[in-house]
């Protein structure tokens, strides 16, 4: 009511306030009607952790790196007889892989450290339970989440070729070409690494789109 001169015409602020509320009323509200309408999550949202059992080698890295020790792993060793080999190989078989989501703090360290991509983020988030004990997900439950894992992002065209690709190319080229392939990798041309023979002749080529 007692606006001083510095702030312009008296009552200006009052009118501006009214204008703000009226303008907001005419705009659409930002409320998400979640249970009725599914939220539009950004791609690769981090909702829950999925397990691809086939990739797990029971290396225990995830369980050891977990800050709150919420991953429980049991396994046993199994003999695998490989025909033609001198002796039977040993293989780890996963018996139990549980993540206690009542303890998990979703730091994602287990996913980072997994050397064989057995653990993945999925955008699923609707797994609330009425009993806290039900938040202990076993490997079957974790495996079911795999359906919801988005496919991995396309490889960066300008980046180094993936380790698998480079290895495959090296093997295909034979033992002599290994160094040549490696030097080409350093030139940061991913397509040349796939064709080490031509790359060995050091022809400068424009990078192609993979696939």
């Amino acid at each position, binding site marked *: *009511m007692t606006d001083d001169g510095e702030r312009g015409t008296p009552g200006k602020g*009052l009118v501006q*306030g*009214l204008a*703000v*509320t*009226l303008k*907001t*009323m005419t*705009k659409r*509200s*930002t*409320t998400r*009607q979640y249970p009725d309408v599914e939220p539009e999550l950004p791609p690769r949202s981090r909702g829950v952790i999925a397990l691809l059992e086939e990739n797990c080698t029971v290396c225990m890295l995830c369980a050891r790196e977990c800050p709150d020790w919420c991953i429980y792993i049991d396994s046993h060793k199994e003999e695998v007889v490989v025909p033609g080999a001198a002796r039977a190989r040993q293989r780890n078989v996963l018996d139990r892989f549980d993540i206690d989501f009542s303890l998990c703090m979703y730091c994602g360290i287990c996913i980072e450290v997994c050397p064989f991509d057995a653990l993945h983020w999925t955008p699923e988030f609707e797994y609330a339970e009425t009993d806290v004990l039900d938040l202990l997900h076993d490997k079957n439950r974790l495996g079911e989440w795999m359906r919801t894992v988005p496919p991995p992002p396309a490889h960066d065209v300008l980046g180094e070729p993936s380790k698998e690709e480079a290895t495959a190319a090296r093997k295909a080229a034979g033992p002599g070409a290994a160094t040549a392939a490696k030097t080409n990798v350093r030139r940061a041309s991913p397509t040349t690494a796939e064709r080490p023979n031509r790359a060995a002749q050091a022809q400068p080529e424009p990078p192609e789109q993979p696939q």
Partner: protein
Amino acid sequence: MPLWLDLTIRVVAVVVGFLTLPLIVGQAEHKVMAHMQGRLGPMYAGGYHGWAQLVADGVKFVQKEDIAPRDADRRVFRLAPLVALFPYLLVLLAIPLGPDLVAQPLDVGLFFVLAVLGVGVLAVLMSAWASANKYSLLGGLRGAAQLLGYELPLVLAAASVAMAAGTLSLPGIVEAWKPWWLLWQAPAAIIFFIAGLAEIRRPPFDMPIADSELVFGYMTEYTGLRFAFFLLAEYVGIIVIAALTTVLFLGGWHGPLSDQLGWLWTLLKIFALSFVIIWLRVTYPRLREDQLQRLCWLVLVPLALAQLVLTAAVKIAT
């Protein structure tokens, strides 16, 4: 028509209006306030955009236990919500919707309305004192100071328009109203509206309730139906203040086709003013107690007196 039938129809009509209009305003407040804050407001009750939210609230209030604090003065405590509600019902009796559409035409309608509205302060003091609660008492005393203070500009502004019309009858004032009064009586209209807001303790004049410092002021100890009565009184208060402003200053039923649609014009103006009341609530922060009193005594009362002088001068000149 026999007298008793006539009487019944009038009373029932007023009671129906008394019960439905506040619900409409309350629902409008839910929705308008929500959208002004970028929210949606109630969406579930009743299915379509939460239209039955207040009905659901009413059902909830009825189910709650009726608690009176141990140290409370029980009879006064229980009576207070009714005292808060009843004056507004009486006021609605005297408010004309159309030329002949009034439950009880009174020659001293304006006087009656203002006198009955003044009873509201009693309910505040009763509930505050009887609750045996310091927050209630503080809220009640604030309320008493506020209601007594704002009564003055309210009455002075109403006196100005009564002087202009030369009558105290509410239909008479609307009858005498001319469009240019909008300009002539504009200060009185604004003063009346602001003082009315303070009378019904609506934000930004909700210092007696001030939920962030006084819990809920004089309503702190109330639950269930009695609390619902207080809330109902607040919303009927909105209707009453909007209706009185309409009748006194905005020409009531005057408008195109006022012979047939007079009541519609009155209702439209009442709802438009109710919207403004909600709008003000959403926009402005609560006035501090000293600001509130200063606004009343240093701004509104002198302005109202000046308006009285102006009205008298114009009245004598013409």
